[in-house]
């Protein structure tokens, strides 16, 4: 269940493939048996699919197991996916659900140790050591970014500066005064820090920054180049999701060409999103992840909705773990706004609860400077209308407040006349993304 801490962090990253596969198969057998015995949800799913735990002997048997999807988390909310008694759970994170209820991610101490180890490997892959000073500028809280990289840095033995997101001028000051070497945040926030620092008159190139681990939102090679121009660091892509663990499930090495998957703990598959059929390495499809060492909230064949491919060739760095390519998109309509996952269905869920507001809306996402902005146009019907400006203003403020509470990210609400949002035949256009990512 736990990994030996006497071994170096990266011991599993250079195992010969056959040994790695034996380890994966052994862990898979144990975790499937555990899920079947302790989580009624998995037992029901496997029974329905006619699969017994004994049928899963090798990692190649994985395809026999049914998929788990985000909706399952909602149906089992809050604790129906737990594989251990609540007394063994030591932390509960929550991320966006597709409607009002969040997606719960509960962990035992052993689960957290695995996650910290994997995320620490991401730091190490990019050259960080116990000498490093790591500033974590991801948000701390229910979101896994902040605490995930925090414990990663501690696990590595580095000094962590738990700055969290925001108060950018102070971030720059700490970075400069402490001699921070490693920065962890969203790529857009890295640009924001660089911009604010320059405006403060700080020569950003005189900072000791050497590596940046950026994730939680989509970015591009062009953005990497830009970040590396404005900050004296190498920018590394890092991947994770709270259902699986958090940041560090995969991360780049100094080759900057693909993210090494911690596949001794998190097994990646690529499937055809239409048919669910597994695809060979090198082919683009939906990433599916199985947690091989997670017992607090077991996760088998989770459909991430992220589109990528597993790179077929070995990495020149010598690690034997496979890599995924930079994310290429989503199979659903999830948006990522300032690192926060937003589903249009969450917005609909809020609107149907407000009298007189029509379930017609249009989300416009843009980027001003380095900051994502979101405006939501909402159609207002006669039932919600009044002849008093202040009452309408209060309605608008109330909608804004309700949406912020559910989405965890602020949005500007614009009231519109009925019919002003374009109706199209078939699938309604709900999102206009003007960001050039």
């Amino acid at each position: 269940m736990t990994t030996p801490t006497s071994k170096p962090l990266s011991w599993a990253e250079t195992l010969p493939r056959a040994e790695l596969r034996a380890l994966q198969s052994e862990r898979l057998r144990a975790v499937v048996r555990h899920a079947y015995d302790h989580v009624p949800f998995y037992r029901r799913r496997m029974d329905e699919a006619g699969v017994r735990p004994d049928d899963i002997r090798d990692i190649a048997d994985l395809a026999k197991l049914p998929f788990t999807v985000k909706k399952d988390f909602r149906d089992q909310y809050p604790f129906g996916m737990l594989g251990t008694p609540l007394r063994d759970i030591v932390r509960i994170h929550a991320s966006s659900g597709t409607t009002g209820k969040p997606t719960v991610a509960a962990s035992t101490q052993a689960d957290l140790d695995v996650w910290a180890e994997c995320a620490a490997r991401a730091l190490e892959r990019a050259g960080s050591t116990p000498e490093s000073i790591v500033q974590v500028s991801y948000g701390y809280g229910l979101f896994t970014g902040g605490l995930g990289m925090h414990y990663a840095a501690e696990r590595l033995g580095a000094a962590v500066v738990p700055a969290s997101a925001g108060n950018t001028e102070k971030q720059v000051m700490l970075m400069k005064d402490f001699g921070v070497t490693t920065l962890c945040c969203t790529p857009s926030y890295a640009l924001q820090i660089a911009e604010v620092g320059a405006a403060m008159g700080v020569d950003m190139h005189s900072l000791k920054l050497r590596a940046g681990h950026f994730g939680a939102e989509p970015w591009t090679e062009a953005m990497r180049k830009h970040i590396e121009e404005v900050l004296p660091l190498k920018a590394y892509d890092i991947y994770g999701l709270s259902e699986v663990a958090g940041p560090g499930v995969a991360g780049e090495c100094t080759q900057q060409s693909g993210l090494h998957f911690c596949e001794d703990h998190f097994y990646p598959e690529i499937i055809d999103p239409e048919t669910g059929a597994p695809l060979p390495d090198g082919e683009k499809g939906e990433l599916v992840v199985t947690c091989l060492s997670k017992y607090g909230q077991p996760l088998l064949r989770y459909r991430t909705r992220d589109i990528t491919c597993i790179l077929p060739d070995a990495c020149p760095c010598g690690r034997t773990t496979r890599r995924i390519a930079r994310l290429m998109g989503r199979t659903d309509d999830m948006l990522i706004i300032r690192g926060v996952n937003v589903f249009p269905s969450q917005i609909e869920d809020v609107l149907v609860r407000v009298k007189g507001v029509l379930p017609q809306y249009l989300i416009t996402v843009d980027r001003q400077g380095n900051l994502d902005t979101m405006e939501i146009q909402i159609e207002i019907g006669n039932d919600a209308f009044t002849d008093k400006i202040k009452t309408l203003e209060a309605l608008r403020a109330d909608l804004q407040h309700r949406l912020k509470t559910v989405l965890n990210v602020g949005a500007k609400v614009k009231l519109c006349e009925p019919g002003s949002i374009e109706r199209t035949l078939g699938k309604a256009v709900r999102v206009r993304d003007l960001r050039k990512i």
Partner: protein
Amino acid sequence: MNVRQISVFLENRAGRLASILQCVTEAQCNLRAMSLSDTSDFGIVRLLVDDVDRCTATLRDRGHTFNVTEMVALEMPDRPGGLNRILDAITAAGLNVEYMYAFATRTPGKAVVIFRFEDNAVAIPALTAAGYPALTEEQVRAL
């Protein structure tokens, strides 16, 4: 009947006010008064027309968001200080005005001031007692 005002939601977008006024024209209504109130994001157009039912039918057909509110209309001598005396009476009666506007009539020397009170059932008797009886829709139309 108290004077009915049509309030129409005005989206902050080019051509929307013209579209509302087009409805008034299509309904063959005479516009007696119009007042506009807005924020940076949206506004409300308030209309007094001679045929409320015909006008609202057209607005409904055109998909506008609107409602109809009963207002208090008072006759005001069209001379300096006329409005002040009415406002003094309102203050003395402890009434809160949500908003108001005024317009001149075809009758020389007479203007009409329109008030939106929180509660007409309180405002109308108080104003009548102060010597300012509320006008009916018919009375306003005749002015």
